[in-house]
């Protein structure tokens, strides 16, 4: 088991923040690193248990894929779908420059 200092580094936090589309101030990042480390250390408890040949459970109900006929049903109007858009243009969601 690792101690709080080594289980997750400031560089790891920086990398994960990029993946998650989040940005932290340097103070927030330091606090986040310390708190994530203590939680991840606690999660190491799970490494104690032998799960060889145990199947995974992603879902508790005995459900398989649920299908329906591919028919057009009622749906939101374009106006309703765009009603919450921060910015729109001619019936589209508008965003800042992409490239």
């Amino acid at each position: 088991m690792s101690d709080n200092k080594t289980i997750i580094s400031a560089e790891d936090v920086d990398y994960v923040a990029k993946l998650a589309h989040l940005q932290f101030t340097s103070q927030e990042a330091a606090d986040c690193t310390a708190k994530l480390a203590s939680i991840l250390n606690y999660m190491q408890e799970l490494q104690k248990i032998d799960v060889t040949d145990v199947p995974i459970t992603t879902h508790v109900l005995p459900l398989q894929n649920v299908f329906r006929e591919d028919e057009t049903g009622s749906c939101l109007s374009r106006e309703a779908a765009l009603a919450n858009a921060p910015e729109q243009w001619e019936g589209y969601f508008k965003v800042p420059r992409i490239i």
Partner: protein
Amino acid sequence: MITDMTLGELERALDAKELSSMEATEAYLRRIKVLEPEIGAYISVDEENALAQAAASDSRRAKGEKLSSLDGIPLSLKDIICTQGIATTCASRILVNYIPPYDATCWRKLKQGGGVLLGKCNMDEFAMGSSTESSAFKLTRNPFDLSKVPGGSSGGSAAAVAADLACYSLGTDTGGSVRQPAHFCGVVGLKPTYGRISRFGVIPYASSLDQVGILAKCCEDAAIVLERIAGKDPMDSTSFDTPPDAYRQACKRPVKGLKIGVPQEFLGDAIDPAIKEQLNQAVAQLKQAGATVEDVSLPHTQYALPAYYVLACSEASSNLARYDGVRYGLRAEAENVQDMFVASRSQGFGMEVKRRIMLGTYALSSGYYDAYYNKTLQVRTLIKRDYDQIFADGFHCLLTPVAPTQAFAIGANIDDPLTMYMQDVCTVPVNLAGLPALVVPVALHQGLPIGLQLIGAPFGESELFAIGSALETNRLKPNLPAVQ
């Protein structure tokens, strides 16, 4: 007083024309006006809408029509449940201006049954928390002691029902978010079987664990509401087609002959002795009523809490990826789209939400996926098997504490996420195994409520209502001023 009547009592009074929905709704709105500044249960109150729904209900009853048992009865909803045309914020700045274009199925069913919506309740941001302190908007106080938290994440809903600021409320429960606040605020809290109530239109946190729950003044009230909102929904492929039972009748069933287990792993040193004492009294009471009560073992219980946080955070990191400032919610100004995503999310989410997104993203990232996420899914199987075995052995339900402590002081755990997470140790196994659980308030200790948790077999809500009703005492009431 109108506002301390149960749902069942209010229904009888409305049917007997002793009372109108308008009078009931006005009584609740007056009480909200006086007490809400102290309690802080609501993010928004919609007086105009509520009065219009009440007037419509009264004119139906005048014509001899009644849409359901809930017709004309004032309720509140946790602000995670989408309400068409009414702001739904999830207590987050990122959804501050969001007006849903559709109703969640659970709310649609209540609305079509004549429910009168008073307002939307405060909660931990995105349902991530156990004290309602992570709300971006306000603090909610425990009606029994204003210096204490109401629990969370459905803390606003529990406080509203406890303080008679709503007749009943819907919340959501991903790891205990209906049950722990019910315990802290002295109300009944039901987390039904996964799939029992449609999740359509309920803003997701961890989709394989989330379930809509009910906060009510007594077991019968929760049963009436469940009868109305349970069932298969074509809009939620994980809703299940097991037909709902006659839950209201189930509250009157005798407990004689039922077999109840007390899992010893739930009674460790971390549990407050006052809570254990109440549990022992409940055991004696159930034996007296003719139930069999035996100690049982669920050997993988200690792994449930870390497993829960790995899974819930992993699912949350994926579910919350949708908040990017493009289609709805907060958008931060930026030069290009990539910076806009990052700035919107960084300004819009609070610290606890960011922490869980970070944990989940880490657990799902390349190199850690097998050690954290996949391994946890295997552990989940072992936890579920523990429960399968108990129910296969003929037990109808399990009796446990709800949380290690009673309501704690505002601010006590806010800087220590791990201690806050420990609040969920008795409730998360239920979500991992997809089971129903009912919290029933049993006593006041040093002025604060204690509730106990009954865990049932899948779709065994009826047994929970039978046993819960047997444990139920007179309603616990906070010492709040009467409002005329």
